[in-house]
C-alpha cells in the first residue's frame, strides 16, 4: 500500500501561505496514494510558473520544462515510456496562453496523460499580469482599465478539440479534487483537470470565497449525463452565480494514441532496448 507520506520530499513549498496550490498539491499526493501508484512510477512534467514548481516539493520524478511546452515534452516521454504515469502540472498562462496549441493537439491525439491546470486567472510568478482566463474587466498591472478580452474557456476548448476526459476542480474542495484526479488517473487517454486555484497575492477577485459561494458539483445533479457532448458544451458556458465543477465529459473506450502504434503493442519503447543490428538487406533499397 502506497501512503501519502511516500510522496513527502524534504523541500518546503515557496508558495504564499493560503495559495490554492497547496490544496492541489495535497489532492495530487492523496490521489496517487489512493490509486496505489508508487512515486518512482510517476513522472510529473511541468512548465514555468508558481504552480509548475509542484514537483520540486514532491518525491516524484520531475521534468520541469519551459513555459508553455510541458504537453509537448510529456507527449515525447509518454510515447517513449508508457509504463510511467505521466502527470502535468502547469498554470493558466503556461497552458492556455503560451501552450494553447499543444493543448488542442494533445486532446485530439488522446495522449494518455493527466493534465492538471493550476488556474488562478493571473500570472503569479511574474507578479500579476492578466492571464488568458482572467475575466473581462479584471484589473491587473497590464490591464489597468480592466481586461477587454473574453477569457479562454478551457472546458469548451478541450471539448471542441476532442478530449475524452474534461473536468474541473477547485482547490478548496479537497475531497472532490482527489476524486477527480483519481478518475483522471483511471481514464485511458488525455484527461484535463482545470482547477480553480485562488492566488491570494495577485487575484483579489477569484478568491476561495468567490468560488465557495458559486461552485456546485455536476455529478450531484441527477440528470447530468457526462457522456453527452452537447450537454457538456452547454455546461461549459455556465459562469455566474452558479459554476459547475466535476466531470463535464468523459468518453470511455477510445483508444489512446499509443495504443494505435504497433511498435508499442507489447511493451513500451524504451523496454525494447536499442536494436543491436540492422540487416544487410536494407541496402537493397538503395540498389
Amino acid at each position, binding site marked *: 500500500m502506497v501512503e501519502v507520506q511516500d510522496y513527502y520530499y524534504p*523541500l518546503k513549498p515557496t508558495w504564499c501561505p493560503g495559495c490554492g496550490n497547496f490544496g492541489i498539491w495535497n489532492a495530487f499526493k492523496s490521489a496517487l496514494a489512493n490509486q496505489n501508484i*508508487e*512515486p*518512482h*512510477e510517476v*513522472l510529473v*512534467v511541468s512548465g*514555468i510558473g508558481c504552480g509548475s*514548481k509542484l*514537483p*520540486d516539493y514532491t*518525491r*516524484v*520524478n*520531475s*521534468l*520541469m*520544462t*519551459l513555459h508553455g*511546452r510541458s504537453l*509537448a*515534452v*510529456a*507527449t*515525447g*516521454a*509518454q*510515447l*517513449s*515510456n508508457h*509504463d*510511467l504515469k505521466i502527470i502535468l502540472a502547469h498554470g493558466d498562462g503556461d497552458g492556455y496562453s503560451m501552450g494553447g*496549441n*499543444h493543448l*488542442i*493537439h494533445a486532446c485530439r491525439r488522446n495522449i494518455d496523460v493527466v493534465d492538471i491546470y493550476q488556474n488562478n486567472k493571473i500570472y503569479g510568478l511574474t507578479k500579476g499580469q492578466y492571464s488568458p482566463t482572467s475575466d473581462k474587466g479584471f484589473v491587473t498591472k497590464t490591464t489597468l482599465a480592466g481586461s477587454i478580452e473574453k477569457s479562454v474557456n478551457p472546458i469548451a476548448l478541450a471539448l471542441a478539440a476532442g478530449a475524452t476526459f474534461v473536468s474541473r476542480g477547485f482547490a478548496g474542495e479537497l475531497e472532490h479534487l482527489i476524486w477527480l484526479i483519481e478518475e483522471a488517473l483511471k481514464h485511458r487517454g488525455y484527461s484535463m483537470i482545470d482547477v480553480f486555484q485562488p492566488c491570494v497575492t495577485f487575484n483579489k477577485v477569484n478568491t476561495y470565497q468567490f468560488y465557495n459561494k458559486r461552485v456546485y458539483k455536476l455529478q450531484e445533479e441527477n440528470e447530468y449525463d457526462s457522456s453527452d457532448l452537447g450537454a457538456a458544451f452547454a455546461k461549459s458556458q455556465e459562469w455566474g452565480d452558479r459554476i459547475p465543477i466535476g466531470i463535464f465529459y468523459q468518453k470511455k473506450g477510445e483508444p489512446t494514441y499509443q495504443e494505435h*502504434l*504497433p*511498435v*508499442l503493442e507489447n511493451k513500451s*519503447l*524504451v523496454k*525494447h532496448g*536499442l*536494436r*543491436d*543490428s*540492422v540487416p*544487410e538487406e*536494407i*541496402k537493397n533499397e*538503395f*540498389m
Partner: protein
Amino acid sequence: MSELTLIIGGNAGQGLESSGAGFCKALNRGGLHVFSVQDNRSRIRGGHNFYLIKTSTEPIVSWTEPVHLLIALTAETVDIHLGKIVPGGAVVYDPSLEIDEDRIKDREAIPIPLPLYDIAGEAGGSKMMANTAALGAVAGLTNFPIKHLLSVIEDNFRKKGDKVININKKVAESAHDHAASKFGDSFKFNMEQQNGAQRMVMNGNEAISLGALVAGCNFVSAYPMTPGSSIFEWLNKHADEYGIVSKQAEDEIAAVCMSVGAAHVGARALVPTSGGGFSLMVEALGLAGMLEEPIVIVLAQRPGPSTSLATRTEQADLLYAINASQGEFPRIVIAPGTIEECYECGGRALNLAEKYQTPVILMTDQFLATSNRTLDKNNIDLGAIKIDRGALLTDDDLDKIDGEYKRYKFTENGISPRALPGHQNAIFKTTSDEHNELGEIVEAADNRIRMNTKRMKKLETALADMNPPKTHGLEDADITFVCWGSTLAPLTEAMNRLNNETSNTANIIQFIDLFPMPVEKVMPVLKNRKRLITVEGNYTAQLGSLLQMTTGVKIEEHILKFDGRPFSPEYILEHLKKLEKRGRNG
C-alpha cells in the same frame, strides 16, 4: 572512361524528381556511377524544374556543368539549358513543343524530336508518362540496357499494381526502340553497362537516416520542412519494421520538445528540420542543454533569411547554429561533406549526444540532402557504427546504487552518470531552472558557478572526440581551399582540374567538426599554408569568421555563392580567376 551529363527539365508537377531518382537507380543497376542535382521551385505546378544526372564508368567526384543530353519537357527547358550543351550533344523533345531546330544545330548539337506524348498515349499511358518515355529514349540513345530501367519501374510502381507497371514498361520500351532506331547512330555518347562491384545510390538525407537507424535511433519527431523532412519520412516509413516511434508534430516547437521528453526517458531521439523550423527550436535547444538531455537536430540548410528560396541550397546557418539560444551551454555541431560522411555522422551524432548528454546539431544543406550519388556497398559498413550510450546507468547499476542518486553530480569531466526515470532507487528531479546536483532549484551563487562550469566543462571534454579537419590532395600546394559541407564535391573536382594543369596547385581542408572547435588539432593543419581561400555557400564567409574567432587565423580570400544553387567546379574555377585578377591588380 566515358562520362555523360543528362538533364531532364520541365515544369513543377511533371514528376521530375521521382523520374530522376529512378533513373539514377537504373544507372546504378547498370554498373554506372552517378551524381545528381535536384533543382526545384517552391511550387507544385509550373515554372522550370530540372534534374541533372552526371554518370560515368568511373567514380564521379562532382556534378559538372556541361550537358550531353537534354530532355526538354517544356520549351523553356531548351532556353535555359541550351547554353550548356556540348558539341555532339543532343536535345530530346516532343515535336509539339515546336522547338526551333536551328538553335540546337547552331550549338553543334543534335535535335531529337520524339513523340513522347504519343508514345505514352499509344501504350495506354497518360501525359504524365512522358517522363518514362523520355528515360526509355535516353536508354535507347546511349546504348544503356533498358532492362535496368524496367526493373526500377517494377520496384517503384509495385504498390500501384501490375497494370501501372506494365503500361510504364511499355512506354519505356517503345520510346527506347523508337529513339535507338531513329537516332541511336547519330548520338555518340554512350552509357554502356558496366560490370563490377555492387553499388548503392543514396542521397544525404537517406544516408543520415540510415546512419541514425543503425545507431539505434528509435524516436523521430518533426514538422514537415524542406529539405529536412525526407529524413522524417524515411524513418517514418521504416518505423514499424524497426521499432521507431515517429511523430509528425503540430509545429517544430512541439517536435523538438517531444524529442526532449523522449530522450529524458531513454529514447534515442532525432529531429530533422531546416532553418525556419530550427528557429522555432532554439528555446528548447537551450532546455536540452540545461537538462542535459541527448537530442540530435538535423539542420538541413536552405537559403534565408526567412522563407526565401524554400527548395534551394545555402550554407548560411553556421554561426547561428553555434550560437543559438540564450545563455551558454555545451552543444556539438558537425557537418558531413559526402554521402559516406552523412551516414557516419548520422550515427555519430546520436553517440555524441548521449556521451556528452547534450544537444548535437548535424548540419547539411539542400544540395547534399537531395543529391543522389553512387557509393560502394562496402563503404556503408553497418557494423562500423557502434552504439555508445555514455554514462547511462542500467537497471543493474541502479539496483546496486547506495545513497541518494545525483542526476547532476559534479564530476571532473562534467559528465554525470545518467539514470532514466522509473527506478525505485533513483527518483530524481530535472528542471530548466538552475539546480544543484539533485536537480533541486537552487539560486545560490556558488552552486551556479559550479553547475554552469560543470556543464561547460563538457565542451572541453568533448574536444577529445572532435576531429581535426580532413585534408584532400597533397600536403603542399599553392592554394589551400577551406570548405565545409556539400561544397567538398565540386571543390574536389575543381582541385583535381587545377592539379591536372599544374601539379600541386591546390589542396583542400575540409571541416566536419565545427563546434567545439578543436583548435589544437586545427592549427597544425591550417598553419604554414601559402594561400588560404574559403569556399562557402553564403554571403559573409561564415567559416572564415568562425576560424578567425576560434583560431585567430584570418583568411582573406573567399569564393562565395548565395544564389540558392549549388557550387559547380566551373563556378569555383571561374571565381578563382576573378580573385587572381583582383589580387594582381591590387
